[in-house]
């Protein structure tokens, strides 16, 4: 039985990655990711893991370096935040098109400007369409577990796609909290060495990242879309295996007291458990409310989200990023799209919350739900929680 220890979550993520028999990592430091990269480089420098840690001059180089290493068949890792992820942006769709099983930890942080180093989801949202599997976690234990699962998902022969693990910056990365590490022996059993579909070697030349004009481009993009959609089967199978081996369950859409709820609150990331407390408070007052936590952002779990949401009367979607001049919250836009073809569907309310590290308390959640309950907000627009105008 693994022992519970108190550890800063960023360090715990690096420890977990260190359990995954990685061959190579390239990380460029940026707040609030830095402790992940620093600790991983410590593990390598101290000889605790047998891997190459490549110090690079930028995030663009970090992602490019792990793509090259992954092409040789190596198991690779990087981590970043915010502007670092923005600098990687042009490389991300190349990684998925090349079908390379990279794993990246993202310590989610607001994108400039104005310059801000605190948590929201504005860094991952612009990467939405880059063809990566994108998973959110809500506590330190999940950050450890999903960081390990990510390699197995990415490298599965039916997937071969990059995976990013979204770990809210500060709220998660800088929190010392109880976590337990799976036994190394079990991790080794869960995660055998990578078997690459193809690898670069001078004695067996192959082309990776080839040129494709209009005669093939559409087919390659369709193939990538199919691969990403199809990855859900593997993700579910990997989570099933994890539950059997380690006793902790993971689902694309998690629920809390959602049965029979007329109003459902939807969150993504580290605010989920704080929101649970709000649900407890309102349930105690007799309100039929529940919580839905979206874990799998890409591939988007359409079937699961429909199943959970369609019976509610009202759904309050919280977003931690803004699609400016568009639908407001990117998550809300997706939820609306998922439900559009349902004959029976709830009214959907959209709140933008927690931008640039603005705290969201239990009271904020209860007051948002209260406003929706009284229909003091409209379904045809979106609100910025607590904004001063």
């Amino acid at each position: 039985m693994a022992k519970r220890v108190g550890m800063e979550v960023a360090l715990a993520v690096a420890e977990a990655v260190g359990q995954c028999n990685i061959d190579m990592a390239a990380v460029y430091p940026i707040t609030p990711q830095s402790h992940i990269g620093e600790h991983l480089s410590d593990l390598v420098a101290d000889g605790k893991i047998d891997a190459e840690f490549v110090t690079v001059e930028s995030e663009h180089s970090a992602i490019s370096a792990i793509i090259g290493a992954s092409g040789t068949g190596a198991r690779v890792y990087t981590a970043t935040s915010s502007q670092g992820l923005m600098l990687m942006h042009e490389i991300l769709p190349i990684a998925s098109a090349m079908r390379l099983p990279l794993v990246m930890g993202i310590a989610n942080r607001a994108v400039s400007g104005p310059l801000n180093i605190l948590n929201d989801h504005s860094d991952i949202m612009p990467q939405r369409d880059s063809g990566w599997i994108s998973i959110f976690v809500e506590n330190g234990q999940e950050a450890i577990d999903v960081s390990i699962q990510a390699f197995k998902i990415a490298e599965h022969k039916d997937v071969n796609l990059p995976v990013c693990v979204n770990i809210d910056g500060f709220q998660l990365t800088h929190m010392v909290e109880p976590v337990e590490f799976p036994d190394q022996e079990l991790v080794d059993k869960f995660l055998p060495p990578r078997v690459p579909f193809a690898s670069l070697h001078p004695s067996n030349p192959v082309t990776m990242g080839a040129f494709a004009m209009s005669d093939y481009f559409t087919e390659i993009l369709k193939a990538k879309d199919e691969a990403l959609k199809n990855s859900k089967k593997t993700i579910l199978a990997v989570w099933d295996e994890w539950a059997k081996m380690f006793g902790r369950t993971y689902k694309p859409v998690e629920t809390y007291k959602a049965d029979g709820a007329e109003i459902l609150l939807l969150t993504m990331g580290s605010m989920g458990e704080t929101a649970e407390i709000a649900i407890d408070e309102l349930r105690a007052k007799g309100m039929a409310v529940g919580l839905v936590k979206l874990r799998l952002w890409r591939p988007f779990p359409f079937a699961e989200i429909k199943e959970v949401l369609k019976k509610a009367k009202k759904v309050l979607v919280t977003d931690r990023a803004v699609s400016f001049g568009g639908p407001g919250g990117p998550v809300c836009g997706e939820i609306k799209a998922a439900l559009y073809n349902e004959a029976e569907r709830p009214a959907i309310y959209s709140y933008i919350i927690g931008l640039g590290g603005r705290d969201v308390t239990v009271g904020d959640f209860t007051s948002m739900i209260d406003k929706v309950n009284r229909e003091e907000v409209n379904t045809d627009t979106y609100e910025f929680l607590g904004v001063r105008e």
Partner: protein
Amino acid sequence: MIEVRWHGRGGQGAVTSVELLAQAAIGVGKYAQGFPSFGPERRGAPVAAFSRIDEKRIKVRSGIYKPDVVVVLDSSLIGLVNVTDGLKPDGILIVNTTKAPADVKKELNFSGTVATVDATAIARKELGVPIANTTMIGALIKMIKVMELDSLKETVEHRFGRIAQKNLAAMKRAYEEIKISN
């Protein structure tokens, strides 16, 4: 659940204190969080750090606005920072100062319990440096009684190695020498 806010200056080790406290509490089977006030910090500038300790799993991740306990690592912050802001009226204020608790209580017009200890003098004597963060953990343990002082031994030894015993000695002295208002 007990919620604690720590006030210090950048470089005085408030963040180390909350890490050690959380690790020790988790080590004895409790649930705990330790976290800094998020954002950039500068040496010498006022900073805060936070602790939560509970018997059951802690779900809340928002900030601490109504702490049960406030620990002040540097008494020069009093007057500069509102150290009793949000502190529960029956809460506990623990200050590193040479002043008597009754004087601090009067000065801050605080209704709850005030405890003081000259942690800087203890740290100077026991550690050879005027850094009172670990010393003040001893003072806090005395006041909140969530665990034995010995429960910190393993955590402190792991963190400080050869200077661990000096830190433990300083914590023990603060635990014993703290003065409490009535």
